[in-house]
């Protein structure tokens, strides 16, 4: 069975980290199975963990009164779910739901925050990687807000 640090080494978010850094991160992780329809986390809950998807599809949703869950984005294998664990006040801003059975690595946020507090180089590496994720998702969200397939689109 592959150790977690080996599994995460090939994931874009963690690629390029040293073996030692991967071991530190892997040491805070555990394998987790989540069934289709189950929640990974809910808006307002403490962000005390985050996930790496090994298999399956996860939706990020906002619950709107009277409209039900509005699906904002989906994430798949190789992608990280959650960054609120890294920034105070450490609370989820969205719901995350498994759309199909998922194999995940769940990371203990308190464990990792503790290691980052002691190892600032690891903290810098994680912060720059998660910031890249945030920027990429922010740009995608801006594109989404443009509603480019609205009525002004080409006729064919």
């Amino acid at each position, binding site marked *: 069975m592959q150790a977690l640090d080996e599994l995460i080494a090939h994931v874009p978010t963690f690629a390029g980290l040293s073996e030692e850094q991967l071991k530190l991160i892997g040491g805070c992780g555990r394998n987790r199975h989540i069934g289709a329809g189950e929640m990974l986390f809910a808006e307002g809950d403490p962000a005390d963990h985050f996930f790496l998807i090994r298999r399956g599809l996860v939706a990020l949703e906002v619950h709107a009164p009277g409209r039900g869950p509005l699906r904002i984005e989906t994430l798949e294998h190789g992608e990280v779910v959650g960054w609120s664990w890294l920034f105070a006040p450490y609370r989820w801003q969205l719901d995350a739901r498994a759309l199909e059975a998922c194999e995940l690595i769940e990371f203990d946020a308190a464990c990792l925050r503790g290691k980052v507090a002691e190892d600032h180089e690891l903290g810098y590496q994680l912060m720059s990687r998660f910031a890249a994720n945030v920027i990429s998702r922010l740009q995608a969200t801006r*594109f989404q807000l443009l509603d480019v397939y609205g009525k002004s*689109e080409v*006729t064919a």
Partner: protein
Amino acid sequence: MASLKSPPERERHDEPGPMVPEPFVVRSKRQDTSDTWTLELTSVADDAGLHFAPGQFTMIEAGGSGEVPISISGDPGEPDVLVHTVRSVGLATQAICKAQPGQVLGVRGPFGNSWPVELLEGRDVVVAAGGIGLAPLRPAILAMIANRERYGRLVLLYGARTASQMLYVDELERWREEGFEVHATVDSAGPEWLGHVGVVTRLIGRARLTASFAGLTCGPEIMMRLTALALADFGIDGEQLYVSTERNMQCGIGHCGHCQLGPWLLCRDGPVFDWQTLAHWLQLRDV
């Protein structure tokens, strides 16, 4: 007194010129989405479609509501019927979409150049479509499937506004079976949709593309621009990416100048260009 010369005999034209619409009858009609229909047409003269290359367009008019350029979305291997997928967004397209089987429409063309499907033989090809931009790409997809063994990996990335706005839903699965890796996403969705949600460029990272790929893209201009930027991150530069453009095409043969963009007349020199050639002009504001 010099005898009066009779005026020169006028040149005879047995064939109608490219500005004369040919009557085509609507054979069938299918509603694809709330505002988009696919029409199958045949010529009144010979009950056939048109020979065309993937990416070409025709000028169509219905009921005197004006002509519009519409890309051909049929199978180039089956020219016995002319297929157009049309979104109802203005008077002319509304009239076309309202046409019923048996109604006669005016058709000119086919016009313009084509997707370089033969040039890309031997390559990996990614097709990135946004919204109704899948319609002009469908003939290229079908042409590549017809010669599947001549290509490496074939990848389709398709983004639509919602699941109900997706085109050719039945065909997407068939294309997958016939050798395309199909990735689809919608910009927004309710709980009934179990596929991807997010913009089409988010699919690029998931498709494991490399610099070995060439690309074809069609959709709103901003979508094509962001697609070009995202593909460049994977080593697919502007010379390897082909886009289909749309401007105010009117004559279809490069005479009237309405569709000029920089040094090009898109109806004649396009509508397909490599991104490198067109990027500068598409990024100019107010052009």
